[in-house]
């Protein structure tokens, strides 16, 4: 169950960072981030992140669910930060 939560959270972090000019440029070196793609990524990102929250709360109730949610957000955001800093080529989509 928490594998689903982890995946949603991680996906959300990836999309959120790619919606920012700075990180898009790190990953796709010679392409410019268009406004439309940025918005699409950002909306999808928030959907994923909040879906993760919903999954956690549904599984564990509000109190413990929120703890899971923020714990997963922390972990996946950390992973995404390392990913985009050291291995941006893995996020490249042709």
């Amino acid at each position, binding site marked *: 169950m928490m594998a689903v939560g982890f995946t949603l959270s991680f996906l959300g972090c990836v999309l959120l960072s790619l919606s920012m000019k700075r990180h898009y440029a790190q990953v796709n070196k010679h392409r410019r981030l268009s406004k439309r793609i940025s918005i699409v990524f950002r909306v999808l990102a928030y959907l994923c992140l909040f879906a993760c929250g919903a999954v956690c709360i549904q599984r564990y*109730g509000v109190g413990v669910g929120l703890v899971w949610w923020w714990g997963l957000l*922390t972990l996946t955001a950390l992973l995404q930060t390392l990913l985009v800093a050291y291995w941006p080529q893995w996020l490249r989509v042709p």
Partner: protein
Amino acid sequence: MNGTFRQSMNWLHTWSGLLVGSLLYFMFVTGSLGYFDTEIDRWMQPEVVLADGAEVSNMVLLAEQYITQQVANVESWRVALPVGREPLLTVSWRDTQGVSGETILNPHTGLPVAVRKTGGGQLLYMMHWQLHYLPNQVARWLTSIAAMFMLIALITGIVVHKKIFKDIFTFRPNKKQRSWLDVHNIFSVLPLPFHLMITYSGLLFLAGSTMMPAIITGSYGTDWQSYFDERSTRFAIVEPAGKSAAPLPLVTVINDVEQRWGIENVGRVIVRNNGDRNARVSFSRFLSDDLKARETLTYDGISGELLHDSTAKKPSLATQTSTVLLALHEGLFASWPLRWLYFLSGILGAGMIATGLILWAVKRRAKAERLGKAHRGLVFVEGLNAGTVIGLPIAIAVYFWANRLLAINVADREEKEVAALFIAWAITLIYPMFRPVKGAWRELLWLAAAAYGLLPIVNALTTEHHLANSLAQGDWVMAGFDLTALAFGATALRAACYLRARESRGLVKSSGKSKVETLVAVPIKATAP
């Protein structure tokens, strides 16, 4: 103050962090370890016999048997049961003379087990707010003050960080100051809900030494007893009547508990005023995956009648808020994956403090190199940083080494283990004063790599619960400890090699070429502090 709002908040952030940084780092490291305190306890007492399916009701009766047969004139006694994460069946008591004692029992036979005396993970966790070698009250004041500084540092940090959302995933390695700032930001912002919660709830835990006295007095005057009585109904704690009465065998009460709750989750049984007419027996359980407080059923110890069920009345909103905050801090409700997330957040917090201290030193060092003179305060902080950030983990590893290497029956074993920790830390704090700073970091990292990497080997040489055995038996507590030690050792090794690679590429000066390096050598021009 000094210019704009942001500038004064920057000043406040720097100074509140700098003044108590080392103490806060200690609190975060020992606190993070505290999330695995019972697991560390088990590793440090490998002789313990696990419960493995022994029935709770049976264990309570075995404990009762031990007390009635072995201890004379018992006034009160309690059993801690191996339920949930707790591995030990422990019986503790106090007799009418005020003498107290404690024994660990075999959960299957009820006979005492010879287990090495150790402070274990519990002691590491308690040092988190009690420190050590200090009177309790003094330690609580110090940690409260540190926690308050932490709160200020967090709030001012948020205010000062201009692009907090844009920078969330930003890490630019190999850029000196910029990289350190990025890491500091990441360690602070990513677990920010955790940091805010842990700091505020920590302040609440220690409130008894700080804010509570005045605020309680403001409404209750000198009658604090009424406040405590109204806050938590303490039905179990009553004065003895002075008349003796035959205590009821626990088996009757156990049956009632089984009917109301089921007996599997009961973690603690406490008997008070044993042999007196006002005897009380309370059964407590702690529900995991739940942010509520411990639940207790209190019975009359002579008649077996249920006197109080703590779950009967819904607590007020204020009480619920306190309970939730404290439960969040302790994380006792958390299952093991969530506990690892807690541990991660705590370690990131320790990293936040460490990188903050390092960032301050790196900035000042850059300025000192330009001006050709180093402030004595800077050299002191640089040495303190290395000795604290790497030295404390080394000292904790030494604590674990001492646990394995000290003879099992040596006197004052607990105190000797702790002494080893603090002696090691003192050495790692003094060491950087005699070495160039960059060299000191590298050497301490080598030492940390050895201290943690070799720990599983020490374990294998001194006990049978080494990694090969514990993996084969599926004993994930023991195996997890050894594996985590290896992981820490590997990380320290990687960091040491990285520093050496940078040095040999000439990016970093580690020899005494720069005249402003060591503390012992006299700097060219030391400015007055």
